């Protein structure tokens, strides 16, 4: 996966990671969340994601997984409580600072959110272009990553001409291409078969090995069981840690073997 090794990342987050080894990538303190006039979706939620950690986020449909992720990529504000992202209280982040903050977070949206009139290649290239990466590097790495997710034959395809699973893989490629410090993937394997799902999980693990903190919201129990990572579970608007085999440790190479949860 040379698209990671060669350091496509326009602004290396490595220094920050080493410097802030003791700090949290994400930290929720007594967070309450509800949409205007709606029911409470998160009640008194507190947790943290250590740098380099890999978590699954589970919970029934409508439990609030997407909402929790949305709070982390600054797509919504909590009703009350504190959220810290990269050691900054998000309530203190000015509008002008948000883009730089968001560039450190890669998001696979549940509904993909691809730009409809951009080709697969241009969609994936977006984060790099926003960051001002040289076009030569983009031309080199984006096709490589797209090939890895099995889309080498569709570089110039518009999203609408691709299947749901293919669109999803474009969304994943776009989220990881910039080697973010934090990867939030919302049901990233919902539209692909198990074989591709496993391949995509390996991609996330590869990214995780390079230091990215990963959080994957999923319904896919067999996938959660197959990969040995701690799980956060949402139910009744409350969040709990289901299992914590090796707290805060990044997924070690080779521990991706199936292990009962």
């Amino acid at each position, binding site marked *: 996966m040379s698209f990671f090794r060669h350091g496509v990342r326009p602004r290396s987050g490595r220094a920050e990671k080493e410097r802030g080894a003791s700090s949290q990538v994400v930290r929720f303190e007594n967070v309450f969340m509800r949409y205007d006039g709606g029911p409470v979706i998160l009640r008194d939620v507190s947790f943290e994601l250590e740098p380099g950690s890999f978590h699954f986020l589970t919970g029934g449909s409508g439990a609030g997984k997407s909402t929790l992720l949305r709070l982390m990529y600054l797509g919504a504000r909590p009703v009350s409580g504190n959220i810290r992202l990269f050691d900054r209280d998000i309530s203190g982040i000015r509008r002008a600072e948000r883009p730089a903050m968001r560039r450190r977070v890669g*998001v696979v949206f549940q509904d993909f*959110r691809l730009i409809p009139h951009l080709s697969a290649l241009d969609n994936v290239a*977006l984060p790099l272009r926003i960051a001002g990466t040289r076009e030569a590097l983009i031309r080199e790495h984006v096709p490589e990553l797209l090939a890895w997710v099995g889309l080498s034959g569709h570089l110039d395809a518009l999203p609408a001409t691709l299947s749901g699973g293919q669109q999803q893989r474009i969304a994943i490629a776009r989220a990881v291409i910039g080697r973010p410090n934090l990867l939030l993937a919302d049901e990233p394997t919902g539209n692909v078969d198990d074989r591709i799902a496993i391949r995509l999980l390996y991609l996330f693990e590869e990214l995780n090995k390079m230091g990215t903190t990963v959080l994957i919201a999923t319904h896919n129990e067999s996938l959660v069981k197959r990969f040995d990572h701690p799980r956060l579970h949402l139910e009744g608007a409350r969040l709990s840690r289901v299992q914590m085999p090796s707290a805060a440790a990044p997924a070690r190479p080779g521990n991706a073997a199936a292990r009962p949860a």
Partner: protein
Amino acid sequence: MWGRNDLALARDPSTRFLPGLLAVLVYLAALAAVGGLTAQGFVSDWDRRLAGSLTIQIPPTLNTGDDASRAASAERRDAVLRLLKVTPGIADARPIPEADSAALLEPWLGPELVRTLPLPLLVDVRLAQSQPLDRESLAERLENAAPGTTLDDHARWLADAQALARSVAVTGLVVIALVSMAAVLAVVFAVRTGLGVHRNEIEVLHLIGAPDRFIARQFQRHTGRLAAVGGVIGSILAIITVIALRWTATDTTAVTGPAGFATLIASIDFGLRDWLAVIALPVAATVISTLTARASVMLSLARLP
């Protein structure tokens, strides 16, 4: 391809009217500019020709026709010329031949009357550039040398012409200002519409870390390009119009002789300044549209939560 088209604004119907509209606006602005510059050109031309000159008018003696009065007139003229020759500030004084002044009046008075009427003697005076002329004392001494002699420095006539030309130029500026305002409003409208149409893409761009200026860049490039196309078309049409006007005007003068309006148009000299104006206008339209698009996007986006 990239960088110009990432929001696919080119396919956005909300900006489709911009090139046509800007062509019309630049066309109007160009004609206004050429009109204003031409008016200014006339005035400075007259100014240059007349500023260094005076006309001295020596009234005829009353009883006409006889040799005595003719001699008296000549004597008065010579006295004036002698006086002018020694007056500091005067480079040259030349009596206008009687035949010439008669020819000037003939169209109005008819040949008969011109021949019998006593005409004033005119002296064309060119002023020296190195030395100022004391008009008061000259007028006084002229009165002594030849009573009734008047001194006309064309000031009143020139002032009238200048006022007229200035109002033409101001009108031109007002037209250009209005046209610029219309262009700004059109761009603001187009950009606002485009922001609405692309609301979802813009939200995604924001979520993946695009700063407002990245989004603004898409709009300003696209708008600038459309404005440049429209501006060049408008400018070319304006040039064609001016050339056509001149051509028809020259044509009619040849056939029908001097006619006020046609002469005026025929004398439009499409000079360097006009060319500069006509080239500058599409550039200005492009710059104004680009800056307006940028400001408009930045302000609209800053209002988002």
